[in-house]
């Protein structure tokens, strides 16, 4: 196991929850370098909890390894500095700070990212031209779509190896959902591995190389995106067919 290993993130027998309520039961999952992997499932299946356990927002039990090294005992900030960027549920922006300040902070505490901030900023603005227009605006005064773009853009400023994205389409108009998905595809094309959590099952499975289906805290199905789309259980439970 080393930095050149094919697997970037490996999760084994992961259990996690809130207080006495266990949400995840022995979840196994891996994401290879360069992949887009999606995690689909109903509300309350444990998708958000899984992302939180990976980045240490809640304490995980079991093993989480990134580039071959265990990260499950580390704190959230330390995990972020390793190159895992988590775009969380609810975006978690700083309402009183400007777009520009968010982007600077995204690069400020991750080794290597600060020195390249000018170049990364240009790339992020190219991806989301809207943010360049709003550079001096406070995040709290922006629309939901703009805030979602800012949340993704802020995490990209760290030049992460891997992006965990939690329901980027939540609460967005369809045209903005398209824009966010297009941006994610472009980010992946630029070399960032993505683990995407979504309720928008069809579109996500079309975009992803592989997918996992999470039900009641357990992985019940996994496979290539198209194969999952053709699966009878997926069709019945998530696509209404």
């Amino acid at each position, binding site marked *: 196991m080393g930095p050149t290993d094919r697997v970037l993130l490996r999760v084994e027998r992961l259990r996690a929850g809130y207080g006495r309520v266990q949400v995840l039961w022995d979840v196994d999952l891996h994401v290879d370098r360069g992949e887009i992997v999606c995690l689909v499932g109903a509300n309350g299946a444990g998708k958000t909890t899984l992302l939180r356990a990976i*980045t240490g*927002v809640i304490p995980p039990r079991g093993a989480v390894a990134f580039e071959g090294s265990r990260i499950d005992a580390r*704190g*959230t*900030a*330390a995990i*972020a*500095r390793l190159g895992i*960027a*988590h775009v*969380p549920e609810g*975006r*978690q*922006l*700083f*309402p*009183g*700070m400007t777009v520009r*300040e968010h982007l*600077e*902070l*995204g690069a*400020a*505490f*991750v080794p290597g990212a*600060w020195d390249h901030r000018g170049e990364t900023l240009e790339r992020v603005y190219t991806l989301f031209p809207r943010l360049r227009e709003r550079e001096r605006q406070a995040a709290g005064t922006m629309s939901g779509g703009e805030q979602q773009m800012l949340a993704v853009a*802020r*995490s990209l400023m*760290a030049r992460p190896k891997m992006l965990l994205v939690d329901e980027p389409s939540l609460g967005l108009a369809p045209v903005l959902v398209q824009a966010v998905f297009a941006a994610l595809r472009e980010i992946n094309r630029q070399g960032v591995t993505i683990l995407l959590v979504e309720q928008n099952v069809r579109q996500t499975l079309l975009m992803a190389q592989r997918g996992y289906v999470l039900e009641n805290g357990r992985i019940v199905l996994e496979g290539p995106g198209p194969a999952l789309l053709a699966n009878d259980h997926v069709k019945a439970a998530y696509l209404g067919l």
Partner: protein
Amino acid sequence: MLIFGVLRSGLYSLTSVGLALSVGVIGIVNFAHGEFLMLGAFLGYWLFVSYGVDPLAAIPIGAAAIFLLGGAVYQLSIRRVLRAPELNQMLLTFGLSIFLQNLAIILWTGDPRVATVSYKAEALAVGPFTLGVPQLVVFGLAMALTIGLYAVLGGTRVGKAMRAVAQNRLGASLLGIDVDRIYLLAFGLSTALAGIAGMMITLQLSVSPFIGLLYTLKAFAIMVIAGLGNINGVIYASLVLGLSEAFVEFYVPQGGGWAEGVFFFLILVVLLVRPRGLFR
């Protein structure tokens, strides 16, 4: 009258901006804030009496000492109640206040002490007014430090990280910001600012173990006027309090005594009329 009010507000800003930092960034209501000011005042006093160091020249040493003390207090006590109910946090800082006050009584007795620097009684004639040199110097320095803090919060990586942590702890930690370290820094800085204010007090007033409480209360009043946790409004809120006190002293018969109660009245009015604060 106006000028006295303005001059007074410098020290208020410095004291309250520290408290606002602790409340705004960490979410800790530090009832012992004034005690750090008191310790700074004693430090300034002893350095002057024992070594002849001017309290203003001693500010860097004093600030560093109180910063370290504040940091130690954070590590040993505050850090452990961050997730506890607010009542526990308040009891802790209130206890800390009583502890530090009594420690000072044991070490230095309750007698008020006065440090007489050479320029204590000097005054400058500015137009038709005669203003005390210590008051002018203290005002200038206090304002410079307050504005300096704003510059740090607005313009440096660490300062922005502090604001980010204040606005969204989870969002900040996901960017690689070590929240615990930011808290430590914010608390140390908060107490150091109080300590500096204390050292400045040695120039003008007497020093005793009991001076802390009044400044804690006034700093609270200023925070309420500014809006709780609103660091930017502190400077204006300090002006409001300083001017109101001066106003009462001059225009109310025997106002000298009443002036010390003005902050209480202001808290009441602001909470009734505009509980979110005047400067938000």
